C-alpha cells in the first residue's frame, strides 16, 4: 500500500486520458494517491519543490511545450532529481520507433502503449505498480 506522501504522478496533456487514469486509480483503490500534470514544466517545478516522495512517474510522450523526452532529459540533468531515482515510465498512444529508441537512451524504466481497452490498460498499470512495490528502491531502504 502506498503512503499518502508517495503519489503516483501522471503527466499527460489530454483530459480524456486523465479521466481514464482517474477511473483506473478508483478501480484499484488508489483514489488519494495520484497527481495529474498537464505538461513537463509544471511537473518539474513540483518535483523540485515538493517534500513528497513520488512513487512512480507515468508520462506521455507528445505534449506541448516540454514533451516527455525533454522532461526525462531535464530530470536526468538535475542532480537532486536524478538521485531521487523516481521510476519513470512512458505511456503513449502511437509512439514512433525513434521515440522508443530515444526514450531508452534516456534510461527510462519502461515504455507502454495506452491500450484501447480499459481493462487492458488497467492490468498493465497494475502490473507496473506491483513490480515497483516489490522492487528495492532508495526510498524503501531504511
Amino acid at each position: 500500500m502506498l503512503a499518502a506522501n508517495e503519489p503516483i504522478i501522471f503527466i499527460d496533456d489530454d483530459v480524456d486520458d486523465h479521466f481514464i487514469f482517474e477511473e483506473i486509480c478508483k478501480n484499484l483503490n488508489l483514489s488519494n494517491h495520484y497527481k495529474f500534470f498537464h505538461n513537463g514544466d509544471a511537473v518539474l517545478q513540483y518535483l523540485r519543490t515538493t517534500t513528497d516522495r513520488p512513487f512512480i512517474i507515468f508520462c506521455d510522450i507528445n505534449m506541448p511545450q516540454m514533451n516527455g523526452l525533454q522532461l526525462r532529459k531535464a530530470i536526468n540533468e538535475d542532480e537532486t532529481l536524478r538521485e531521487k531515482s523516481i521510476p519513470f515510465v512512458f505511456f503513449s498512444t502511437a509512439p514512433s520507433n525513434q521515440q522508443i529508441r530515444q526514450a531508452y537512451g534516456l534510461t527510462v524504466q519502461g515504455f507502454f502503449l495506452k491500450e484501447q481497452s480499459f481493462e487492458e490498460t488497467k492490468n498493465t498499470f497494475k502490473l507496473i505498480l506491483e513490480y515497483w512495490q516489490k522492487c528495492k528502491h532508495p526510498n524503501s531502504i531504511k
Partner: protein
Amino acid sequence: MKKVIVSFIIVVSLLSVGSYYFYQIYFTDFIAQAFVSNSLPGVVPKRIQTRMKAISVPLNKGTEALIQKMHASDISIDHILSVVDNTTEEQAYELLDELNSTKLKNTNDVFDVTKKHIDADFNLEIFRKPFQEHFKMTQVRKVLYLANQNRKTHDVDFVAAKEIIKKILLEKEKEYTKRRIVNGE
C-alpha cells in the same frame, strides 16, 4: 380489507406511472438540457455526473458537426431521428462488442465498424469526415469505457439513452436554425 388492497394497487400503479413518466420524460429532458447547456445539475447522482462531464465536450461538438453536415447534405432532422429510433438495443451491443474486440488504429476504423451496425436510408459516408475531424482516439477509448460501464450498471437504460440523444439533436437543430436566422441566412 378488499378496499385497502384496491387502494394499495391504485397507489402503486399511480407511483409506477409517475416514476415511468419522471424517468422517460422529465429525466431525459433534464439530462439532454444539461448536456446542451454544459451545466451539471446537482440532483443527478455523482456517478452519472462524472460520466456526463466526461462526454459532454465531444458529444456537443459531435452533434453540432452532425447537424451542420446534415443541412449541407439536404438530409432532414427526421432522417437522423429515425436512425436513432430504428437502432435496437441488440444492434447497439453488437456494435459495442465489435468495437471492443477490434484493434482500432484510428477514427476511420471506428467509423467503418460503426457504419456496419447502423441502418440508414441515406449515405452515412457524408459523416465520415466530420467524425474524423471531431473525435480523437482518446475520446473513443473513453466513450467505449463509459458504454461498457453503463452496460454493466444500467444507470441509463437503452430507451432513455435514445431519448436523450434525440433531444440533444433537436436542441442542436434549434440552435442551428436560430443562428441562421440571426445571421440573416
